[in-house]
């Protein structure tokens, strides 16, 4: 009987852990993410990720990146530390960055936190996430031109993720928390398109 009870508990634990992953194929439970974040945060050796301020001209240059065609497709994720779905999707984005960087992806995490957070909450969060992608905080007096430059149909809700091909055209966009499977499929396609 003891063996059966143990078996029962094992199945229950497995089901609880596997449930959210089964929901979208790639997701993990928020509880697990929170625990992971805390675990990572305790590691003192991880350095703060450098976060630069990006002004209007810098943003223009980021989108243009010289004269297309560019060597690498560009993925921009607009986020903020105060945005819950942004925080929730970040572990998936970190994985995607790690998986696709060597395959030629240029990934930029563009925070709209207050520029005064460039040395505090933003790099701390990125460190906790073990993020390695380029990271900026938008530093513009009016955000509307930035929103419109990316997508005129975008209202500015966060998070928002845009994938540009080598010609600088948006080939995938998602407003709200990403579906990692869909984003990976788009990345596979844009990277294979030469």
């Amino acid at each position, binding site marked *: 009987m003891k063996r059966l009870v143990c078996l029962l508990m094992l199945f229950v634990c497995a089901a609880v852990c596997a*449930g959210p992953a089964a929901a979208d194929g790639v997701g993990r439970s928020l509880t697990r993410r929170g625990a992971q974040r805390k675990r990572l945060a305790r590691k003192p050796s991880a350095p703060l990720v450098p976060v630069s301020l990006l002004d209007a001209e810098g943003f223009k240059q980021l989108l243009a990146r010289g004269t297309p065609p560019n060597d690498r497709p560009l993925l921009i994720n607009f986020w903020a530390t*105060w945005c819950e779905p942004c925080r929730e999707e970040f572990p998936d984005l970190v994985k995607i960055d790690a998986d696709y960087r060597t395959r030629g992806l240029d990934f930029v995490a563009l925070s709209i936190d207050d520029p005064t957070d460039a040395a505090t909450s933003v790099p701390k969060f990125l460190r906790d996430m073990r993020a390695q992608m380029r990271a900026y905080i938008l530093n513009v007096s009016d955000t509307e031109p930035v929103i419109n430059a990316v997508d005129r149909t975008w209202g500015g809700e966060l998070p928002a993720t845009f994938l540009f091909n080598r010609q600088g055209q948006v080939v995938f966009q998602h*407003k709200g928390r990403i579906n990692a499977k869909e984003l990976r499929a788009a990345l596979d396609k844009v990277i294979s398109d030469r």
Partner: protein
Amino acid sequence: MKKQHVIALTLSLACALVVLASAAYAARTDEPAAPVVAIGATVADFTLPDTDGAAHSLNSLKGKNGTVLIFIATKCPVSNGYNERMEKLAQDYRTKGINVVGINANVTEPASEVKSHAAEKHLTFTILKDEGSKLADRLGAQRTPEVFFLDADNRLVYHGRIDNAQNPANVTANDLRDALDAVLAGKPVAKAEAKAFGCSIKRAAS
């Protein structure tokens, strides 16, 4: 109980937990609806409950010169950054015949939370609870805070941000107030749409 029965029961329980956990994870979406009300279009009357459950129609809440619908949130720092400005706006324009109405369409924020939040933040204008985000879907609202300013005939004359900076000290464009003053002066609204970053409205999964 036979061993096979226990195993079958265990597997059933595990499957049920998987389904429940999947449903809970998928029960929220940030996916916005496509905008459906264009500038100049008339917004049809609607009825929503306030945070005490009392029903209010648009036509019962509208001011004689117009109505400002603002999608707000209890937990969104951007929306919360505008609490004082929204309350001041409501007070400044109430006497001019324009009423401010807050709308909470977040599935994650129940009416009781909206009510206590309004009391805590001293928001005196009416706040409606948009269960199922139906009005948000109808208007195409995507974020908080997001404004839909309707004139006396319920025509949409301004859509978008309140102003251009979350930090009040950095505001250089008072887009909503400019639109309100234009309508009160009988002039066309110079800038009928303006954007800013905000929190996505948390909709229930369809």
